[in-house]
């Protein structure tokens, strides 16, 4: 064969191999359950049946590109913005009770979005929204406003399976974040380093990949990002911005905040940090660094298209490996939403749901600190474990499903 033809032949043959086989093996119910439990919350019988007929790669494709629906808007009162001045003017007891009611409504709204997510793709989008909530942490404890928390949540959902580059730029100027990490008080001449530190340590590079000097310089670049206290809207304040020269990770110039974020995104450690966290979320508690570097490279080459990272993770050998089945501890949200979804049970009312989340140890919209919920074994102590078990009993008794008692009380029910 002529050498040129031989090459063409090889390319052609390779192409056929890489095309998805038309009659790929159906993965079966066990694989379908594994994938649905990890990518969504629980596994509804109909979704298991549907996925069982697909090959693994087809199912992953369906998760990443399948149909979703819009999440309904929350009740109007959660979207009323109350400025700090308005809050101060209210009677404290009234304000406290009002806030408690709103917070319960806020948590119930998101839980309903998870419970009612109609397709596996819509479930994955909610899981990724939760993943980003635990990455770009903001908390009601400091932000106070349910409106700003709803808006941040919607922002995270819009970018949940989108582009990390765009998400980082957007969430950094998100009003809840501007309040939570004190950007609003970061001004020329009196810098507040909170956002600069956390964006490097937790959102992008990770500890050890920057210096204290980088933080100082970056904080100056982030000056000017602020909010309008009366409306809660983002506001650029040019007079608070430091126009001097700064040097961050070796790049110098009159950098502004967006320029610094671009410098952070250009570092390989950023993609690795995000992929390592996705690994812990979807695959196992022990990261495989070689695989993480491989997937992170793809992620960065694909301009931080999060679907590319997820496709690689969910199609990886490690994801399907026997030793990684039932190897992750369910979060409280996994437990509650997953149980209701899998058993197709009706959800308890908002107040009970909110209380259950608290007893199991995951107050949505109020992670414990800027690092988020540590997850894994930290979800389980004697209190939270007994809380899971007594919740299981209450749900089963309510629905007369005591035949499932043994399964739900078994230690392995805490795993997914």
């Amino acid at each position, binding site marked *: 064969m002529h050498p040129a033809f031989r090459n063409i032949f090889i390319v052609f043959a390779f192409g056929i191999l890489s095309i998805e086989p038309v009659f790929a093996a159906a993965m079966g119910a066990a694989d379908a359950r594994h994938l649905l439990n990890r990518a969504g919350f629980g596994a509804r019988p109909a979704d298991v049946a549907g996925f069982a007929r697909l090959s693994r790669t087809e199912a992953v494709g369906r998760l990443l590109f399948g149909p979703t629906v819009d999440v309904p808007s929350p009740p109007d009162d959660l979207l009323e913005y109350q400025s700090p001045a308005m809050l101060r003017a209210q009677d404290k007891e009234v304000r406290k009770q009002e806030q408690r009611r709103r917070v319960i409504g806020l948590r119930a709204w998101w839980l309903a979005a998870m419970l009612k997510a109609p397709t596996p793709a819509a479930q994955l989008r909610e899981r990724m929204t939760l993943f980003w909530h635990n990455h770009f942490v903001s908390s009601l404890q400091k932000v106070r406003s349910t409106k700003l928390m709803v808006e941040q949540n919607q922002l995270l959902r819009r970018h949940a399976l989108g582009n990390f580059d765009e998400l980082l730029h957007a969430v950094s100027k998100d009003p809840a974040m501007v309040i939570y990490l004190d950007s609003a008080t970061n001004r020329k001449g009196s810098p507040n380093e909170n956002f600069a530190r956390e964006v490097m340590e937790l959102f992008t590079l990770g500890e050890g990949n920057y210096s204290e000097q980088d933080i100082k310089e970056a904080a100056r670049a982030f000056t000017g990002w602020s909010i309008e206290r009366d409306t809660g809207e983002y506001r650029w304040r040019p007079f608070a911005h430091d126009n001097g020269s700064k040097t961050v990770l070796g790049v110098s110039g009159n950098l502004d905040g967006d320029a610094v974020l671009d410098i952070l995104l250009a570092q390989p450690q950023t993609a690795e940090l995000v992929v390592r966290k996705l690994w812990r979320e979807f695959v196992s508690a022990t990261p495989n660094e070689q695989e993480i570097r491989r997937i992170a490279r793809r992620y960065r080459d694909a301009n931080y298209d999060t679907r590319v990272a997820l496709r690689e993770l969910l199609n990886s050998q490690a994801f399907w490996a026997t030793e990684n089945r039932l190897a992750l501890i369910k979060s409280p949200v996994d437990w509650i939403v997953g149980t209701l979804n899998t058993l197709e049970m009706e959800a308890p009312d908002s107040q009970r749901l909110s209380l259950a989340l608290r007893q199991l140890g995951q107050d949505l919209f109020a992670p414990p600190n800027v690092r988020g919920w540590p997850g894994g074994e930290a979800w389980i102590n004697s209190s939270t474990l007994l809380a899971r*078990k007594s919740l299981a009993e209450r749900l089963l008794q309510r629905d007369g499903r005591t035949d499932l008692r043994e399964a739900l009380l078994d*230690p392995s029910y805490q795993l997914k």
Partner: protein
Amino acid sequence: MKRREFLNCLGGAGLMALTPGLAIAAGSSPYDRLLILIELKGGNDGLNSLVPFSDPDYRALRPQIGIRRDEVLQISERMGFHPSLQTLMPLWQAKELAVLQGVGYPKPNLSHFRSIEIWDTASTSDQYLAQGWLARSFVLSPPPATFAADAVIVGSQDMGPMTGGGRVVALSNPQQFERMARLAEGGGAARGGPLAYIQRVESDIRHAALKLNGLGTDFNFSTEFPQSGFGNTVKTACQVLGSGVDLAVLRLTLSGFDTHQNQPGVHGNLLTQLAKGLTALRSALIELNRWQQTLVLSYAEFGRRPRENQSRGTDHGTANVHFALGGAVRGGLYGESPNLARLDGSGNMGFSVDYRSVYATVLERWWRQESRQTLGGRFAPLGFIA
């Protein structure tokens, strides 16, 4: 296993074990000395608990809610207790009560959630640790397996300083805990990984429930426990001890100290509950013959701001007053009285005692353990334990 059998099991090494020091080590543990933590949740107002009544700055900062000179229970030339702490006076006079002044940490955080996390994990202000300071101690030097649990929590579900290590159970009463523990009868013994971890927590629960209810020797206290929420918490804690089990730590919580408005009535009521509860605790521990072997210690996320606010209350502050009680406690005042003439930018007090020095006293003097590794640095113990 009896001690004699244990020594025999050691065979050749048994000879060495018969040397006095080691023989004692086989039968007793440093954790035989009990620690009872009292969390004053919300941030107790230390400045109105131990009042610098003669300080003109105090009267200027607290024109409405300050405790009047003629009301305080004077304990020194300058300082006196809030009148609601009346029942603690006999303990003070018996030198069984140490009052620790100005307890705090550098770069104080004013958020309830973050500041209690700092206290619970013994971290610096900008350090995030996953494990509580007592959990670290339990992991470094585990209490004996014969103990019902390393720690029992009463009146809260939060693991606090015991987060992330050791055998810790929370209960509101022993009977209900036993009923709940029946839900943890999964059994099994996985080799490792998350399943083994969950099975271990379940087995800790079963072990505690068995010990707590298996002895059937409920102690009949002649102590009268106060009829209050905290009184019940104290009673439950004493019933746990009265069943004859061994524990290293008990943690009790009294909530409601976040007194932003109309503080005087609320705070007086809380301090009454605290003082009466502590007095009952002492009396019950004396009945159990454990008072000499018990250290009671209060803690909270922060103190409150010296200047009262517009609602006759106080906002979040920094350095605070804490109490240490017990038969072996060396009573008196420790640390420096607050300097109200020198407040920081947010109008708060500086500290004179790092809170980790209080922890170092527990670890080094009470339990005879190292503290540097547990606390992430060297903090000098205080003198309230010899």
